[in-house]
Each structure stands twice: as structure tokens, then as C-alpha cells.
């Protein structure tokens, strides 16, 4: 890793030729990298394009292996609404995602604040436990937790998924703590000297400065709920009134006896909101993801 800064001796003769070679090489390099990027881009976006193409095919054509639709049946999207209660699924998904996100923020910010700012015995242990919880496969503790909700008569609803978020979400706590650590201590110390209570410090000083972190956590949680399949499958699958988009989509093809075209139309409808939100909040996303990768 130690690099010498001494340039190798160059002779004036042949320098120009080398420069020309260098330019050609740079040019080729540019073409090569960009061509690879474009090829990869096609591979990444291709699946979505084919989903769209199939979504507008006629019933008969989806039973063939042709790639391009003969006719553009935009009515397929309307058909999805007519054949399945997709609006109900959307409503349930929204309830889960919005309530889940709000609850998570309200409960996780204080915890992250305490872990990042207070010095107390067991602080490190608490943080390590947060990480352990974050990494615990949800299936490990599924049986006893299911029993709790069954006793409370809440299975068949989405409440077993939403209510626990009032007690903090490990991943959100972890992420917020990482972000809060990056806020210099001087700010909170200054607030303390001014006689602010912990609560006022959090509201007045920390929250405004942590806005990007909070936005990222909110988005992650929203998308987590939106995409969650395991949770709704476990708790809500038995009650068709509580189905979410992911549960509905998973059995869409078989349950509604439809062909691939309508299935792909439904798939697109499930994807669309997420992709739209992404284009509006791209920066928050990318920054948030970067935050999850930092070393500690």
C-alpha cells in the first residue's frame, strides 16, 4: 500500500506517440466500460420490459412463446381490478405500511437516541442485543409469538404485524443510532448547558439534524411492510379480508384462474407505486442504503 511518489524517468522522444496511444486506449476503455454498463442495464431493466409486454398480450398469445404483443390490450389492467379485490389488498397494504412506519418511528427514535447519547452501564450490551434481534430470523420465534396473538384473538388480522412496532424495531433502531452518532456531541452538550431537558434536546436539536436519517428509516420501514410476505402469510392468510398485495399476488394466478398476461398486469400494478415513490425520493434511498453499510 505504500506508494513511492517518484515518477519514472521519461525521455522526450516517443512521448507524443505514447500520448496518442494513451488517448486511443482511454477511448477504447471508455467504450468498453460504457458498453458493459449498457449491457448490464438492459439485463437489469429487461425483466420489467417483458413483464409489461406480456401484461398487454391477449389470452391466446400468452400461451405462445412470442415476445412482442400482436395487439396492445390495455384493458387487461382493468380486468385485474374486475377479477380480484386488488383495491382491498391495496388498502390493507397501505394500512400496514403507514401504521407500521409511524409506530416504528415513534418507538425507535427515543431508543436510538438513548443508545447514541447516554452513557450508562450496559450500553454496549444493549446495542449488541439490538443487533442480535435485528439478525434473528423471524421464523425462530414464530411459534410462541403466534400463540400470543392467537390467545388475544388477533390472528386473521394485520394487528400482530403492526402492534409490535410500537415497541421498537431493531433494524430502525440500529440505523438511527448509526446516524445519530454522526451528529457531533457539541450540539447536544450546548443544549444541555442551556438547560434543555432530554426530551427538549431530542425535539429541538436532534430531530431537525437527523431528518435525512429519519427519512431513510421511514422509507425502509414503509417498503419492508409493503413487500412483506411472510408476516401477512402467517397471520392474515386465513382471512381474505386482511390479505395484502403480496399475499394476493402470490396466489393470483391459481386463485383467479387466469393466464400469464393478467398475472403480469397484476405484478406491474404491485410494482408501480414503489417505483414511483423511488423516483421522487431517490436521494434519500441511496443515502440510507449507504448508511446501512457503515462498519459500526
Amino acid at each position: 500500500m505504500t506508494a513511492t511518489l517518484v515518477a519514472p524517468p521519461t525521455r522526450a522522444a516517443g512521448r507524443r506517440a505514447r500520448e496518442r496511444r494513451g488517448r486511443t486506449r482511454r477511448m477504447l476503455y471508455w467504450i468498453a466500460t460504457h458498453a458493459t454498463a449498457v449491457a448490464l442495464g438492459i439485463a437489469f431493466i429487461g425483466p420489467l420490459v417483458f413483464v409489461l409486454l406480456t401484461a398487454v398480450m391477449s389470452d391466446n398469445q400468452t400461451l405462445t412463446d412470442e415476445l412482442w404483443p400482436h395487439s396492445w390490450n390495455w384493458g387487461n389492467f382493468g380486468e385485474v381490478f374486475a377479477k380480484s379485490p386488488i383495491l382491498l389488498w391495496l388498502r390493507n397494504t397501505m394500512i400496514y405500511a403507514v401504521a407500521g412506519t409511524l409506530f416504528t418511528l415513534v418507538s425507535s427514535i427515543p431508543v436510538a437516541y438513548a443508545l447514541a447519547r447516554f452513557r450508562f452501564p450496559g450500553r454496549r450490551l444493549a446495542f449488541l442485543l439490538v443487533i442480535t434481534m435485528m439478525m434473528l430470523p423471524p421464523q425462530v420465534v414464530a411459534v410462541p409469538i403466534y400463540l400470543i396473538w392467537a390467545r388475544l384473538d388477533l390472528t386473521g388480522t394485520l394487528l400482530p404485524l403492526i402492534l409490535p412496532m410500537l415497541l421498537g424495531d431493531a433494524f430502525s433502531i440500529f440505523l438511527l443510532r448509526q446516524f445519530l452518532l454522526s451528529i457531533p456531541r457539541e450540539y447536544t452538550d450546548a443544549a444541555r448547558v442551556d438547560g434543555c431537558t432530554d426530551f427538549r434536546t431530542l425535539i429541538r436539536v436532534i430531530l431537525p439534524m437527523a431528518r435525512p436519517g429519519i427519512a431513510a428509516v421511514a422509507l425502509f420501514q414503509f417498503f419492508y411492510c409493503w413487500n412483506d410476505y411472510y408476516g401477512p402469510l402467517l397471520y392474515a392468510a386465513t382471512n381474505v379480508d386482511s390479505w395484502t398485495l403480496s399475499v394476493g399476488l402470490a396466489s393470483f394466478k391459481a386463485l383467479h384462474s387466469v393466464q400469464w398476461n393478467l398475472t403480469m398486469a397484476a405484478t406491474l400494478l404491485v410494482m408501480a407505486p414503489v417505483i414511483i415513490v423511488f423516483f421522487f425520493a431517490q436521494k434519500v434511498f441511496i443515502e440510507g442504503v449507504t448508511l446501512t453499510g457503515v462498519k459500526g
Partner: protein
Amino acid sequence: MAGVPLRRREGFRALLWLSPWLVGFGVFFAYPLLATVYFSFFNYDLFSLKFNGLANYRYFMQDERAWLSIRNTAWLVVVMVPAQVLFALGVAQLVTKLKSGVGFFRTLFYLPSLVPVTAGTVAFVFLLNPATGPVNRILSLVGISGPDWFGDKDWSKPGLTLLAMWSVGNIMVIFLAALLDVPRHLYEAAAIDGAGAWRQFRSITLPTIRPVLMFSAVTGVIYTLQYFTQAMIASRVAAGVTDAPGTSFVPGYPEMSTLTLPQWLFQTGFRDYAMGYACVLALVLFAASMAFTLILLRQFRGFEEVAE
């Protein structure tokens, strides 16, 4: 003010702030873990609870499907995680080399990772359908006879790996940030030294981003141990016929090749109601994920000591 009383006071305040999470920790972590151990010694179907000693453990030892599911999960850990990490690293490295359109390509590569898992999986089962899907059709145009992907036990996991690589955007963005953090001047110096691209990568890039790489690999392993949704949906949609009302669904289609440990746990516990036995499987899963979590914890503990 003396330091110790202040610390003690902070401790009480911290306890207050942490209390909701502490309740959550007790109810959704500590208690269920203990209860899982407890139930593993019982025959429990949600209605009647009968002590049966080690019968669940003995059944586990000879439950072929449990071992098959463990092997499948292991396959995913050994193949899918490295494939994801290496691919993400390659893509990120490529983006750093681009002179124009960086933002555009980054968005493009990140986008699929946002697609809801269910939707992405359903889409991939269609894309890879041997009879009507476009992938094999395109392969046939260049003279390759594509495999049966989600209908063939040897190709279903590679199919899932493709899906995983397609939605690798998160890791890619993390790597990209790490790569851009590597001080420029190190490369310049190395270039002057005459180090080639590969040497630069090995002796500068890799050591600098090693912690990020480690973190992604370990969390990747832990998430892969939980691998459920994609496998469940892929087998469900690919099997198609077995999903009709009245018939029950067997995960793992085709031929148990996509049956992962969490799915088998779900099936025995919440479809078959052999909940005591499901707890045994849960403990196996817990042991595996805990082993990797410990690696992660060591990394974090090390960092904390340096920081304070």
C-alpha cells in the same frame, strides 16, 4: 459534579428511554426463545399439549425433508451469497470507472432491488418459464436450448440465484459508496509505481473496503438463512396446479429442490400443526444464524472499543 453520580443518573434516564424497547425485547425475543426450547419437548397442535420428551428431536434426526431443507439452505449460503457479493462488487467497480452517466446507471442498477419481492419472483417464474417465457425463447434464438429452470430440480436454485443477483442493488450501492471513499491519491501513486489494474484492486481497493465487504457477506449469510419468500412463491407459482382450492400446497417444487429450512419450519408448524417439532427446527435455525451473528457482534465490539 462528580462523574459517577452523573453516570448513575444517566443510567436511570436511559432506562426510561429504553423501556418500550426493553418490553419488546422481553415479549418478542427473550420469552419466545425460552418458550421455543420449552415447546420442543412437547407434542403440541395448538389444542392439546403433551410432553413427549425427546421424540421431536429423534424425529428430526430421521426427517429426510428437514435435512434436505438444510442442504438447500446451505447451497444458497455457499453459492448465492458469494454470487451476490461478487456481482455487486463487480457492478459497483464498473460504475466507478464510468466517466459519464454515473447517476443514471446507479439508478438503473438499484431499481430492481426495490421491486416488491413477491412481484419480482412471480415475474421471474414467468420469464424463465420454458414454454412461454422470453428467456428461453431468446436463448433459442442464439441456438441454446434453455433449461427448465423452476421446473427442474437442478436449475431451480440457480434460477433463484439469478433473481438474487438481479435485485442486488442494495449491496451494490453500499459497495459503491465504499469504493468512492478509497482515497484517490493512493491509486495515482500506485499507477505511477506501475501497478496494473488488478494489483491496484488487490493491494489498495480490497484492504480499504474489507470491513464493508465482510459486513455485507455476513449479513448476506444471515438473511439467506431466513430465505423464505422467493423460494415459497417461486415453487408455488411454478407448480401452479397444486394451488387449486381444496388441495394443499407442498413447498419445495420441483422435487423439494427449493425447500429451505424456514419453509419446512413454516409448513410443519403452521400447516401441519406439529408445533413442538417446528420448535426443534427453529432451534436449528437459531443456532446457525447465531453463529454468524457472533461474527458480526465481534466486529461491532471491536469498533466500539476503538471509538470510546
